[in-house]
């Protein structure tokens, strides 16, 4: 797995390390959706309607950009039941994200459900540049 799950008394955390920012954001999306459902089943959708998804936002630093990314994924999944199956970053810098991708609708009873992630918390939230790339920690309220 491109991430590690760590323990929090009532909730679930992800610890990520990646060679570049794109890897970090992509791995975080995998982690988020794998915690929420059987993500592998969405990778080869059959007979599912694939919907286009676009995101475009700027923040003041990499930490806020990463938080926003996770919050967007959560909103798309929670409000619209959309699971991102293809993510193409058009621009990704520590301050800006432009993404075009596609998503498949999560259908309860048809798709496996895991955690209902309520929120991306600021608790122990961390994004940092390292010698070998980027690392981050995030705790999800479940």
């Amino acid at each position, binding site marked *: 797995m491109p991430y590690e*799950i760590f*323990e*929090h*008394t*009532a*909730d*679930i955390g992800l610890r990520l390390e990646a060679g570049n920012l794109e890897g970090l954001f992509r791995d975080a999306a995998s982690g988020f959706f794998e915690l*929420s*459902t059987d993500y592998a089943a969405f990778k080869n959708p059959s007979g599912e309607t694939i919907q286009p998804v676009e995101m475009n936002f700027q923040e003041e630093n990499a930490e806020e950009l990463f938080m926003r990314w996770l*919050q967007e994924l959560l*909103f798309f999944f*929670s*409000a*619209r*039941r959309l699971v991102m199956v293809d993510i193409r970053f058009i621009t990704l810098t520590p301050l800006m994200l432009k993404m075009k991708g596609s998503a498949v609708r*999560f*259908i*309860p009873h048809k*798709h*496996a*459900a*895991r*955690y*209902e992630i*309520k*929120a*991306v*918390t*600021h*608790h122990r*939230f961390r994004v940092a540049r390292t010698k070998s790339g980027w690392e981050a920690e995030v*705790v999800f*309220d*479940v």
Partner: protein
Amino acid sequence: MAGSIPLIRIDDVRWEIPVSFRKGMRVPGRIFCDEKNLPKIHTDQSLEQVVNVAFLPGIVNYAMAMPDIHWGYGFPIGGVAAMDPDEGGVVSPGGVGYDINCGVRMLRTNLTEPDIRPRIKELVGALFSRIPCGVGESGDIKLNRKEIRQVAREGSSWVIKQGFGEAHDLDHTEAGGCLEGADPQTVSERAYERGNDQLGTLGSGNHFLEVQVVDRIFEPETAACFGVAEGQITIMIHSGSRGFGYQICEDSLGMTRRALSKYGIHVPDIQLSCAPVHSSEGKQYLAAMRCAANFAWANRQCLTHLVREVFGAFLGKSPKDLGMDLVYDVSHNIAKFERFAVNGKEKMLCVHRKGATRAYAPGCEELPEAYRTTGQPVIIPGDMGRNSYLLAGTQQAMDETFGSCCHGAGRAMSRTAALKAARGHSVRKELEERGIFVMARGERGIAEEQPAAYKDVNEVVDIVSRAGLARKVARMRPLGVIKG
């Protein structure tokens, strides 16, 4: 680290973190716990969070934690803090939590265990198929934008007007199921989008619906007043404001983070971001939080209606004939303005309860006439293998904890640790062997919520009882459980 935080013993169930422990603390920390359970608190960072809460501007008397204390975000779960708005007191979204007005309600019935026991599997199956629960499940109640705004403004009373319950349910709901001052204009479009199909849904995680039986009465007169007797079937519902509230909390944290520098407030943990109660940001958060609180009460009211329908259809009698009255509904994640005596002067305070339950004493005007001599019913769910409790509020709680006590058992084990502990055996089967029938969307959820993952609620309730924060009235044990 929490292990190095000094705890001064006040008595068998009270411990204090001195205000001198860390520069910046405005008040001491006060922990309600006994010697036996103290080591469990030291296993996580929850005491550090009590210290952090003591930094908040305008905090009165103590940063408090109940015996079900465990690691939360910003505030510990089990945390209570009252702020004086006239002394620069703040309101903190982290002091309420993401699940705004998560709470519990309890219904009584005229049924006894022999009426239900032989058909408990069927009954739990009927409840499970009727009550939406789990990830991505939407409810049958679809709200347009105008209607969800009415729910946000009016809470339980609006859904009762639509036929989801009885007018007298409102008397037995904290705050009558509606906080005044909710302003739907302060709620984001995203929150409305997350909430518009979630009314009447249970959710997942630790939310549940239980069919229970009363197995012990401690105060017969009070129990009779609450409509509860030994051997009787009761129903407990634990849920909150769903995606609507989570989104409101998320939106507000961004706003209160920016308010920190604007008002020169230092907090040791960004998850404790806050704004003065009288500031525009404080007012905006409170107006939006009240919308979520009202949504949560409406949600539990709709769930109550579904439960009554299922029982009625299952037993071939009307809910009225089954005596399915609401004993009470209490919030355990909320910030409310409440009046308390501080140093002999009556003050209107902003009381934060984060995993803590209001426990008003006999005589409080806010209580319905029927409960004014007994004190407020305080509902404490345990875990799905042991017990839950019905308590009553006390004057001691009014004097010491701003009318608050614990909210549940409190987690003792992380979710991953619980999963590891469940390897090689079926929690579901073990519970079934003990006469407790559980239905959930998956085995994983049952394993994570297994009884061993929680502190023993009997010990937690014993501590609040010994501290005089609540009186034991009745104990229940589960017969059937549904979980998301």
